[in-house]
């Protein structure tokens, strides 16, 4: 008997309001992921819990290596996030977190497209609450934009699924054999959630807008779910290699000049996704393994970084680089955890990023994607630059901003500590993680050349940072907004639409107003001609006219 794990989360969300607020509820919140985890962690791979709905067979729980890895990391992250949010007393956020985690796990374990779609949409609706939970006007509007983008993804997926089912008659979620229109729609849907270039703006827009704890949850699921879906549906699709490379490259430029550190993290999230997408695109066992590992590690260190920034936001009230600095004096533990996260994302040896990123790089190299390989190398150096150094440096060191606050609450520290421990642990002992990878590939990350070259790359990068910093070339944090492709729908499109609407309206009015006036006049005239009282003379005239007319007609008709 196996219950699909997502049901635990949903049931938990239902029961949650009944649990008294406070420690009880927080405990409950962190126990749900553990309970759900026990349901599948020892389950043999296979398909469970299928249901019939509307003539389709739904597979609610399909466990294979790919799904297992993602479910596992999602569950761990859900637990850590719950721990991190222990102090939160906001019921809506708690419910949203539970549902969001649950449906994300459900989506990963969905064996068919319809179930996948249901969860796909549900992640969108559940997650927007976390954005809104900040409860400001800005967050509200941001959430609306976020929601619409997520919905667009869902709808494209829906259309694609329907087209797919119509063409193939099967609703199983397996690799899409050929890239027809249906597949393109589905790819686009995945692409939106995966923040493909030009479809990515929702990510940098929404993630920094959430609450300190909300962003942590957000950073875990949506995009990794998309990576999972790509890995399942489109492994080896070559276009993805280039899309991924582009994703890895362009956000780093933005990240360097971005002021809001959580948005910097969002850009780096995008950049890291690029690595994973490249891995999916290469599609060799090594590359796919790299994608899975990287996603696994990424969830942890990105969560860690967002946690540390969340703690900063909670205590210092802002995460803007221009306002922060010298926080290590107040929040030393957070500082250390942040540095561990930064080291992990920068792929320092002995940290988790190292053992995952190199798989993808190796795979790219192996398959002869030279340019892509260079690009990824560049991106790796860049990551260290704007994320590995910039985040800890601007937040905790640099010039002293004078902010003196308390250290993060114990639960946050505990959550960060556990996450940091996992990051280091995986970095040191990668084999357990490698063991759960979908493809049996033996890979040894810790070879001399790997370590040395990686260190070369990173330390020279650091050198560059130092040089630029000392020369004053490094861009300082400035309160600003950096334009991106989202200006199209945030500024231009509304203007164009309003203008079009307005001019159409004006046009219609300018046409109809005289028409209306005229017709009213005609109407009134009819009234005057027909309705008014006329003298007998008029009548006589009509009699005469009619007579003459009739006579003429009869005469002519002869």
């Amino acid at each position: 008997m196996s219950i699909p794990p997502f049901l635990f989360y949903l049931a938990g969300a239902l029961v949650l309001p009944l649990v008294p607020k406070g420690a009880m509820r927080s405990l409950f919140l962190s126990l749900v992921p553990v309970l759900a985890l026990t349901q599948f962690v020892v389950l043999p791979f296979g398909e469970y819990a299928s249901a019939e709905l509307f003539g389709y067979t739904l597979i609610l729980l399909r466990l294979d290596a790919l799904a297992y890895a993602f479910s596992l990391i999602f569950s761990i992250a859900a637990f850590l996030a719950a721990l991190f949010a222990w102090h939160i007393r906001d019921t809506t956020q708690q419910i949203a977190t539970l549902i969001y985690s649950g449906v994300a796990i459900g989506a990963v374990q969905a064996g068919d497209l319809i179930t996948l779609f249901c969860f796909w949409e549900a992640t969108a609706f559940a997650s927007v609450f976390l954005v809104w939970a900040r409860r400001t006007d800005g967050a509200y509007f941001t959430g609306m934009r976020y929601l619409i983008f997520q919905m667009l993804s869902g709808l494209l997926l829906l259309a694609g699924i329907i087209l797919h089912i119509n063409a193939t008659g099967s609703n199983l979620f397996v690799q899409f054999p050929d890239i027809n229109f249906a597949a393109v729609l589905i790819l686009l849907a995945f692409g939106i959630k995966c923040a493909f270039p030009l479809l990515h703006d929702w990510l940098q827009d929404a993630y920094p807008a959430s609450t300190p704890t909300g962003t942590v949850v957000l950073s875990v699921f949506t995009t990794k779910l998309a990576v999972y879906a790509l890995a399942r549906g489109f492994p080896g699709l070559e276009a993805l290699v280039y899309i991924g490379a582009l994703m890895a490259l362009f956000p780093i430029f933005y990240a360097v000049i971005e002021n809001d550190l959580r948005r910097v993290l969002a850009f780096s999230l995008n950049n890291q996704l690029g690595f994973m997408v490249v891995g999916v695109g290469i599609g060799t066992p090594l590359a796919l393994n790299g994608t899975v590992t990287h996603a696994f590690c990424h969830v942890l260190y990105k969560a860690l970084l967002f946690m540390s920034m969340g703690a900063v936001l909670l205590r210092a009230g802002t995460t803007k680089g221009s306002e922060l600095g010298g926080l290590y004096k107040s929040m030393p533990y957070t500082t250390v955890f942040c540095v561990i996260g930064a080291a992990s994302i920068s792929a320092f040896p002995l940290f988790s990023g190292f053992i995952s990123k190199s798989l993808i790089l190796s795979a790219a190299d192996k398959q002869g994607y030279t340019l892509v390989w260079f690009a990824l190398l560049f991106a790796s150096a860049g990551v260290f630059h704007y994320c590995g150094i910039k985040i800890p440096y601007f937040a905790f060191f640099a010039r002293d901003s004078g902010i003196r606050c308390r250290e993060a609450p114990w639960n946050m520290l505990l959550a960060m500590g556990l996450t940091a421990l996992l990051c280091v642990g995986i970095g040191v002992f990668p084999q357990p993680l490698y063991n759960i990878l979908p493809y049996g590939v033996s890979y040894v990350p810790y070879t001399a050349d790997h370590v040395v070259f990686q260190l070369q790359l990173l330390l020279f990068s650091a050198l560059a940072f130092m040089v630029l910093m000392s020369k004053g070339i490094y861009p300082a944090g400035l309160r600003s907004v950096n334009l991106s492709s989202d200006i199209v729908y945030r500024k231009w499109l509304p203007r164009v639409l309003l203008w079009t609407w307005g001019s159409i309206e004006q046009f219609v009015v300018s046409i109809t107003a005289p028409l209306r006036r005229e017709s009213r006049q005609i109407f009134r005239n009819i009234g005057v001609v027909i309705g008014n009282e006329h003298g007998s003379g008029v009548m006589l005239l009509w009699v005469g006219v009619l007579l003459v007319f009739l006579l003429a007609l009869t005469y002519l008709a002869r």
Partner: protein
Amino acid sequence: MNDTSALYLAILLPLLGAVLIAALRNHPNLREAATLVTSVVLFANVCWLVASVANGATPRAENILPMPVSGLFLSLELEPLGAMFAAIASGLWIINSLYSIGYMRANKEKHQTRFYICFAIAIAAAMGIALSGDLITLFVFYEVLTLATYPLVAHKQTAEAKAGARTYLLILLSTSVFLLLFAIAWTYDIAGTVAFAQGGILSGRIESWLAPVLLACFAFGIGKAALLPVHLWLPAAMVAPTPVSALLHAVAVVKAGVFTMLKVGVYIFGIDFLEQTGASQWLAWLAGASILYASVRALAQDNLKARLAYSTVSQLSYVTLAMALATPLGALAGALQIAMHAFGKITLFMCAGAIYVASHRTQVSGLNGLARAMPVTFTAFAVGALSIIGAPLLGGFWVKWEIIFAANALEQLVFIIVMIASSMLSLAYFAPVIGRGFFLPPAQASGDADASAPKEAPLLCVLPPSISAIICIILFFQVDALWRFLELIFESTP
């Protein structure tokens, strides 16, 4: 009891209820009890009929009254589509009655007896529409429905209410008298009958270039279906009290419109005939335009009920679009939309009414933070809205699913795009209610005017929308049964 007498009963019961209500006008509690009892009995009766239809029977009552022109009779006949409509209308009457009691009392509305009487008559008319076996009978009940709801729309008797009711009556009566009747007469002339028949009655009898014209007469003549140029009555009717809006938008009126549209498509033209001639092509396009236009208009409305009204316009065109796709699948999807939209929209309206009762707020921009005071109402609203949007786990999803399926089968990409765009737009106009309600801080500028913090509305205002919201969820999982029932449309021979 046999099927035929059950047919008569379905129409007579609400009328009887109206008489009872009138008789008990001095005893409000008994009067409301009369409404409730009647609605429950009616529902039971309709369920009996539905069961009989599900078993393959076709309850009939022909030649009830002789009509002047030979071959033209009033007749009743129940096929699956009508059975579904009847079941929805009578079922929602129960919920709506409960809600009406809560709403009318909480708002201390006047003329409550008139309200309940007209309501009952409107339900009788809706039953008649559902059960009618030919166009003339349908037309008669259609007009009765218009007339019976007119006093309801004008209920408040303010200048605004009168103006709205006037537009309501004018558009509905004029389209039906001008175009619908004309179309019926024309149909009669072509086919020699106006009785609904499996596969339509026009096939091979009308020149193919005239078929779209006749269809146009029907499409615009059925004003209650609120196709683009004739949709204006719906926003105008928003002046009515909320239970009436629920009646208009969910229980009876607009549903009667699209139901008629479906009936005409399926049983007068015949889906095959429409497909062969392509007579409904233009209608599909117009319905698509209607969907998008109304959605955009909804987006621009700040008044919650006006927003809902435009949403209804857009959602109704789903049915028309589905029918105009001219495939059996499309027609079934349209029928499904009638059911799904009914439950979704009634939830929304009852929530809007509950919000009004509790806080006297009508504008979306004024809802900030209200959800924290009324979590149940807003949750129900969210469920209803998501169902309308077509989110999974809610009934509305399957409609979207089937319509896209039907459009895809025809390789009509544009309608898939329309469906997607419409879902996006509906999300865009519903999400603010939820987002603002739950997450924005309440406005404080109004000061002590709203000194008494709003609380959840009375139980009878909150319970009904909760029930219908739950039904929205159940419908997602139980769609199979409904669908199989509807499939009888193309299997049985009525």
